[in-house]
């Protein structure tokens, strides 16, 4: 429905309250961060960008947790595959 791109804040121009320069794979654009009022933003933070506005700050802890869940599933899958292999050797 709506193309949203994660970008890393590389600069918050001094004297600007609602603009930030973000980087997407080395590509930079100034975006409006006025919709994120009240959330402290620093270079290094990631935001989701849509039509020139940052819609939300990306929560790295949540992202990591999600990946860990996926890795867990992956690990469990590997274990099962291994178990399956072993069992077939024995059969």
């Amino acid at each position, binding site marked *: *429905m*709506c*193309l949203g*791109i994660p*970008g890393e804040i590389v600069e918050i121009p001094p004297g600007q309250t609602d603009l930030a320069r973000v*980087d*997407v*794979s*080395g*590509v*930079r*654009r*100034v975006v409006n961060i006025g919709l994120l009022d009240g959330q402290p933003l620093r270079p290094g933070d990631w935001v989701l*960008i*849509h*039509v020139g506005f940052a819609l939300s700050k990306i929560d790295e802890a949540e992202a990591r947790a999600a990946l860990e869940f996926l890795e867990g599933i992956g690990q469990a899958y590997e274990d099962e595959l291994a178990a399956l292999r072993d069992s077939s050797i024995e059969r």
Partner: protein
Amino acid sequence: MAHGAGGKATQTLIEAVFLDAFRNPLLEPLEDGAVFAAGGTRLAFTTDSYVVSPLFFPGGDIGDLAVNGTVNDLAVCGARPLYLSAGFVLEEGFPVEDLRRISASMARAAAAAEVSIVTGDTKVVQRGKADGCYVTTAGVGLLERDAPLGVAHARPGDAVLVSGPIGEHGVTIMLARGELDIEADVTSDTAPLNGLVTALLAAVGGKVRCLRDATRGGVATILNEIARASGVAVVVEEDAVPVRPAVRGACELLGIDPLYVACEGRMVVVVAGDGDGDGDGDGDGDAEGGVADAALAALRSHPLGEGAAIVGRVQDDPPGLVLLKTAFGGTRIVDVLVGDPLPRIC
């Protein structure tokens, strides 16, 4: 009539109108140029019009673009580019300084490609027309090899290569227009490919089936032309397609697929298999190895082919389609682009 960026709409128009009118055995709109014999000499002949805006952009300008484009169309016919013509349509009031810059850049590009611009023409049109400067180049090249090259010559088992990272020219132009306010360290890839073609042909000579410079419509369009004209399927590994990070980033921001973005110094290469059904002769059903590796090595040995890669293979089924094995492990069709790639929000 829609804006033309090599998409289906333009292609359909050209085919419908011009093929209808000019139909003759040599007119082969799917190729980059015509090939014929004159007085016992086999020649290639091609033309392109350049209407790029802005006229000057990082990495080049309309001048070297016009020279390289025609040099490349000759080179990918397997011809040695010799002579170029240049027709200019200039807007009244166009700064002579800019014209000087453009012609200097054409002269440099011609020297680099070892061709001469031998004949030309200039028309000046009313202010407001012509957007500054349009250039149409045509070129004549000498065909020194016998085996025909062309989009209809791909065969199951062939390997598909690209000569370097894709999409740099198109992204550079989109950003150079300035309207998107996006900054990126990306420069046009405009370059003459004849040297690279010579290196490739020296290495794998008769094994080359098809060469195409991936201009309007990008690599995806070329691959579709090959699939359709040869009645084969082209299967591309998404992971294997070289794309520089800045190009990827800009394409992500704009919702554009780099496969459809124009290059001006990259080509798609199809080389023959070596008999084991997949093109490399090593019996493992895998396109890498053998001829494909030799072609890759030849490309990489040339400065303009450093970033070359084997990106896919040709197979018989499903004929006429380009399939992409995604990095994610899925599969999809890569269709012909409809019109320009447009920045999108959804």
